[in-house]
């Protein structure tokens, strides 16, 4: 059973790994491997006092455990290449199926990397003699099975919980917290340095928590065996087995529930869609009708609910993390962050609706109302939250001079965002699973990573004019000019929303069938592509693997020079903050601070430029017929 399932999963993977996915796997694998090696190095570290070192290792193992628990949330619901629904009709006991599916969970890069990381336990055991080492050899595989089993259980719980609106919102909270922690990890690094972690160890309460988590039971077993204290060692190992067994039992129950019930899409109560108001709105003309339809979809489509709340939570949590080190300076930008993130996650509105686009194709002349209505609905959904965040954030974290900055940038971003979501959603549409074929998991929002990143950049750019005027006002010390920035923000916002919206509905009218084709294609790869060189429905041409890896690398790492080493230090320099942290530029003497920060920003921008241009050039070359679709050079010379 396990054998057949694993064989099946391998075959599915072989049919679905394309160039970019393979490159992502290699890069992700390398990143994970370096983390795993870091874990081993930490276990062998001599610098810290033994109890501190053990505490740190326990904390790192806890981090691996949480990585496994939250990973599925972060990566979109976990791997679903072999789903329990496929086997609903088989005469197999649920527990057996759970064991089989657990077996397939070990096929992949992540379990291998974790196995390497948990090898740290053997290094840790070096201090505990032969007995400790022997126990480590048993504990390492048990620990791996445990994290994988708990991870599967987590996916199972999500699969049931997340079918509801509260579940989608909860998942958004978890997802946003993860993202914020990753983005703001420099704060944690600072806190660790401030508290002198290596010297004094973790705070006592945190230390107790990580020592009680199942992730450190392996360590406890090793240490006990080293002392010759066998009962606790055996208890710790049996405890691991018990966790695995309980996780499997609970998971098999959930599998049965998942395959013998069906999600009910009830109308949400009190979901901010008061019927009569919207009905009156819908009666007010074509744009009003689209606005009403969109507002209802935003609250009824779990995926849209999830994305919207993700943006809100992200904007709210992001400025809160620096409060840990007593810095309030980010609070006024909460609203702006909500807008940027909401625009970034809403830039696929047409894709999210799937082939419902046909309704516009058979109703020529409705494109304008469709686009304008979507823009208005987005503003109605986002603007009030963003304004409230900005006002509250500036009251608590701003000064007199931040008001014109915060308000002008917010106005500019709202308008720019409303324009760009329309423009990008028709020009750079990403195919997503049809709404009626989704499993109810709001996490399967398609491969919108690149689109999200691009949108964050573009939307931020729309605030430049307003920010420029605000800067001028500060420089000249003229409050009138500062407040003129708000007018500028409103102006550029209105112009961009109008202009981009018009471009979008014209494009929708002109290229509707192509867009529909693209939605329908869904990026499927037919087997045998290597021989035939044909990719059904793949928009654009496939890059050769080497260049694809380069492009993926550029897109993943351009953010480091651009934001943390470029724009953030620039902001800190302008702001006059004393923090240096890992911002390279800030460690330099004065004329070089700005130069280095600007240089890093430029490096980031150049990386983005090439990340965009390489695929675009390749596609043009393919279209001109110089290169075959599979990347072979037909023209002879490059």
């Amino acid at each position, binding site marked *: *059973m396990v054998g*057949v*399932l694993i*064989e*099946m999963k391998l*075959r*599915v993977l072989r*049919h*679905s790994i394309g160039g970019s996915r393979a490159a992502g796997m290699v890069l992700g694998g390398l990143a994970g491997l370096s983390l795993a090696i870091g874990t081993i190095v930490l276990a062998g570290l001599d610098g810290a006092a033994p109890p501190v070192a053990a505490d740190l290792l326990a904390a790192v193992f806890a981090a691996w455990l949480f990585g496994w628990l939250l990973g599925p949330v972060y990566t979109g619901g976990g791997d679903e*290449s*072999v*789903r329990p*629904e*496929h*086997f*609903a*009709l*088989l*005469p*197999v*006991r649920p527990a057996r199926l759970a064991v089989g599916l657990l077996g397939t969970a070990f096929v992949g890069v992540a379990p291998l990397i974790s196995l390497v990381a948990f090898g740290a336990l053997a290094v840790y055991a070096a201090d505990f003699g032969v007995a400790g080492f022997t126990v480590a050899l048993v504990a390492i595989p048990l620990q791996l099975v445990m994290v994988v089993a708990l991870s599967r259980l987590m996916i199972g719980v999500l699969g049931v919980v997340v079918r509801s609106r509260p579940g989608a919102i909860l998942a958004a909270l978890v997802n946003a917290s993860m993202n914020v922690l990753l983005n703001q990890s420099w704060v944690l690094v600072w806190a660790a340095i401030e508290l002198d972690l290596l010297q004094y160890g973790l705070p006592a309460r945190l230390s107790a928590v990580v020592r009680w988590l199942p992730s450190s039971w392996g360590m406890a077993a090793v240490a006990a065996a080293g002392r010759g204290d066998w009962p606790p060692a055996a208890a710790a190992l049996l405890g691991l087995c018990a966790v695995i067994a309980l996780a499997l039992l609970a998971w098999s129950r959930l599998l049965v529930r998942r*395959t*013998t*019930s*069906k999600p*009910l899409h*009830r109308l949400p109560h009190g979901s901010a869609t008061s019927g009569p108001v919207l009905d009156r709105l819908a009666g007010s003309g074509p744009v009003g009708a689209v606005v009403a339809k969109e507002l209802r979809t935003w609250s009824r489509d779990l995926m849209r609910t999830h994305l919207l709340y993700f943006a809100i939570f992200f904007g709210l949590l992001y400025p809160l993390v620096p409060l840990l080190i007593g810095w309030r300076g980010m609070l006024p930008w909460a609203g702006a962050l909500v807008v940027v993130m909401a625009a970034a996650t809403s830039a696929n509105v047409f894709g999210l609706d799937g082939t419902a686009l046909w309704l516009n194709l058979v109703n020529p002349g409705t494109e304008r109302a469709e686009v304008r209505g979507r823009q208005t609905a987005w503003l109605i959904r986002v603007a009030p939250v963003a304004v409230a965040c900005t006002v509250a954030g500036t009251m608590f974290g701003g000064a007199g001079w931040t008001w014109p900055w915060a308000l002008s940038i917010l106005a500019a971003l709202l308008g720019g965002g409303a324009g760009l979501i329309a423009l990008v959603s028709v020009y750079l549409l990403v195919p997503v699973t049809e709404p009626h074929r989704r499993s109810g998991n709001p996490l399967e929002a398609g491969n919108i990573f690149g689109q999200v990143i691009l949108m964050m950049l573009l939307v931020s750019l729309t605030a430049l004019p307003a920010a420029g005027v605000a800067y001028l006002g500060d420089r000249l010390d003229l409050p009138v000019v500062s407040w003129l920035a708000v007018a500028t923000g409103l102006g550029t916002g209105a112009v961009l929303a109008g202009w981009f919206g018009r471009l979008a509905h014209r494009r929708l009218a002109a290229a509707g069938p192509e867009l529909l084709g693209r939605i329908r294609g869904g990026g*499927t790869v*037919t*087997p*045998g592509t290597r021989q035939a060189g044909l990719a*059904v429905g793949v928009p654009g041409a496939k890059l050769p693997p080497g260049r694809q890896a380069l492009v993926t690398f550029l897109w993943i790492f351009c953010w480091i020079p651009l934001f943390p080493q470029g724009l953030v230090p620039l902001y800190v320099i302008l702001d006059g903050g004393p923090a240096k942290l890992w911002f390279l530029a800030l460690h330099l003497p004065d004329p070089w601070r700005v130069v280095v920060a600007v240089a890093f920003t430029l490096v980031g921008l150049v990386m983005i430029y090439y990340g965009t241009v390489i695929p675009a050039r390749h596609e043009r070359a393919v279209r001109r017929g110089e290169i075959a679709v599979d990347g072979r050079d037909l023209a002879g010379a490059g």
Partner: protein
Amino acid sequence: MHDTDPPGEAAEVGAGPVPALELAGLSKRFGPKAAVDQVSLSVPPGSFYGLVGPNGAGKTTSLSMAVGLLRPDSGHARIFGVDVWADPVVARARVGVLPDGLALPERLTGRELLTYLGRMRGLDRPTAARRAQELLEILELDEAERTLVIDYSTGMRKKIGLATALLHGPRLLVLDEPFEAVDPVSALTIRAMLRAFVSGGGSVVLSSHVMALVEQLCDHVAVIDRGRVAAAGPLDEVRAGGTLEDRFVELVGAEVGERRGPSWLAS
């Protein structure tokens, strides 16, 4: 892995032979709506049983509960006397199912899918491969050898679903709309296959909207309307002299004479 005894020989209770499929008081509510309300049916072994009813009448819900895909709120379903919900492993081994809107591992070819599912059903590798080959040939899916299931047309999905239902040689087939979106030639193949199956002693339960098809194929029929059984029994008894269509319209309470189109389309 599972019980492979010919289920038709299972113990006979009381008077008649054990029904191939028996639904007893099945009910299911979705929120405030009773989708299926006390449905009881008995499918005699060796019969070709048609299930008809208007859209949303509860056919698919009833069949899902009958084969173990949707847990009923109350009532029982038995396959050759084995309770589907009390002993799912034995019950599932005896039935082949073509569900509505079925989930399949999309990124496998038809042959891969059949081979893997066959092996998960306990067939050895050569047997699984041989049966997959035969089914692909009969259903004319062998020409789409390099096509993934995700790229199959609606009709091809029906056919591959039917193939998965036949793979393990069950004595009862439960098929939800097997002819929907299937081309006429394939439909003839499937019909011939099902007829042969029934004359060999197998039992088929299928749901359909096409009255003529049910009349041609089935010897028993049940009419389901608003979650209840409106009529059930041998075909001739149910249609009572008229056509099945007339009887159906009469049972579900629609007045054909007063059917009308939208006012603005009437000339």
